[in-house]
């Protein structure tokens, strides 16, 4: 576990991620508390893709893949899975810290204080964490999958960026609605009781599971 942490979370990645969330919380304007999650989710998605696109392909760039090829598939999958999990947990912690930084730097209006009967800030935070966990899992697994297919981390990043542009566009909002992978961002944030956006997160989980099921084949054929 300790070695996986050292491999998947080198100092430069941690520093870049901390810098990223700090800058985001300083420059992305929010006025009301429910906008904080909306401001963070798409940005964290692209950070997760950049962060995780080298999860496996670092074995190719480090010319270790031919040695990895000899290891039992179960061990290889476990190792890649651990790396993804470690990175995701780190990013989730970062997302939680980023949520706090927005409140610290921008002091948005607390919607829950204005409407205590319909809106709870604490509940809003935990819903945000849940949505963020799914978003981070989807984008990290997606970037790793594309990188593995093309055996190149830049394809992982580039492919993720293309999907990100598509899914954050007005076209995607109109076409996919609550089934968009960014359904949490594009939900009616003022209505805390509206959970139609969960459909989008469900799709994220399904796609994530499908990509993880594809991983053994990818490691075998493209590893």
């Amino acid at each position: 576990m300790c070695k996986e942490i050292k491999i998947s979370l080198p100092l430069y990645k941690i520093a870049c991620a901390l810098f990223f969330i700090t800058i985001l919380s300083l420059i992305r304007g929010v006025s009301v508390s429910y906008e904080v999650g909306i401001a963070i989710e798409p940005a964290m998605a692209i950070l997760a893709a950049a962060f995780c696109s080298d999860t496996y392909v670092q074995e190719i760039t480090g010319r270790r893949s031919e040695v990895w090829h000899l290891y039992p598939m179960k061990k290889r999958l476990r190792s890649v899975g651990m790396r993804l999990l470690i990175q995701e947990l780190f990013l989730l912690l970062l997302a939680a810290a980023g949520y706090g930084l927005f409140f610290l730097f921008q002091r948005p209006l607390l919607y829950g204080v204005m409407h205590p009967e319909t809106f709870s800030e604490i509940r809003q935070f935990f819903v945000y964490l849940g949505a963020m966990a799914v978003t981070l899992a989807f984008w990290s697994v997606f970037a790793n999958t594309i990188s593995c297919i093309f055996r190149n981390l830049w394809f992982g990043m580039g492919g993720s960026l293309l999907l990100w542009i598509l899914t954050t566009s007005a076209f995607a909002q109109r076409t996919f609605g609550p089934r968009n992978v960014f359904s949490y961002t594009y939900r009616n944030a003022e209505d805390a009781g509206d959970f139609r956006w969960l459909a989008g997160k469900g799709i994220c989980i399904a796609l994530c599971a499908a990509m993880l099921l594809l991983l053994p084949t990818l490691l075998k054929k493209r590893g």
Partner: protein
Amino acid sequence: MSIQINNLTVTFQNKVTAIDHADLEIPTGIFGLLGENGAGKTTLMRVLTTTLAPTEGTVTLDGIQYHENNYEMIQKQIGYLPQEIDLYPGLTVQECLEYMGALAGISKPLCRERIQYYLEKTSLTEHRKKKMKQLSGGMKRRVGLIQALLNEPAFLIIDEPTTGLDPEERIRIRNLLVDFSEKRTVLFSTHVVEDLAATCNQLAVMKKGHFLYSGSVQDLLSNAEGYVWECKIEDPVKARDIEQKYRVSSKQYTEGGIRLRILSRVKPGIDCRPVSVTLEDAYIYLHNY
């Protein structure tokens, strides 16, 4: 443990044939693999490590045929050191080897025991707490070799294991490999002919995807017996003429003039004497005659 290669052909998608209908038997012990750049050595090793599937032909490892269904069984018996490998720069030597040992499925206590043994054998014990990025090229190479030895494979494939090592370390590594090859098969690919001369009894020479030679070192040396000549020339212009006329395997400036080793089937028309054949002479003779 013996490896049998029959009619092996590897053709890439760009239609380049890296190995062309090659046959070879690799017996127990250290087996040398020599050849110029692009001869097909690395491709052969990639086939033997199951990374690359042959286009044609068969390979068997102790009777087990190289086939997707058998790969798992074969992979368990192989250790591999590629020509270039960049081991985890952020991990220490000990951590890196423990990590790779765990991936290979070796239990923790056994893995630690083997790491300690091989670190001692390769004079790396005092460097075990250093990060991989802090090591010299030769030290990294030795760590790479240890990772290939960790699961004590029945078939060890090593590509240029002595690159970057000083003479003393090279001898140490060669001796380690000789000890390791007892009852095991080691395929030792290198450009350093003297490494093979010091370790192998059997070797194969590759050229353009074919095996030019496969057999004992002694027989290869015998092929060039009587065709290696040595002469001493004082005039550099004359020495250059000889170099143009004959295949010269070594040239050395000495106090008494320029000493040349000439490969020729007939006695060169200068004052020279026949000398004993080295593996390097035999290799060059094989490539050119």
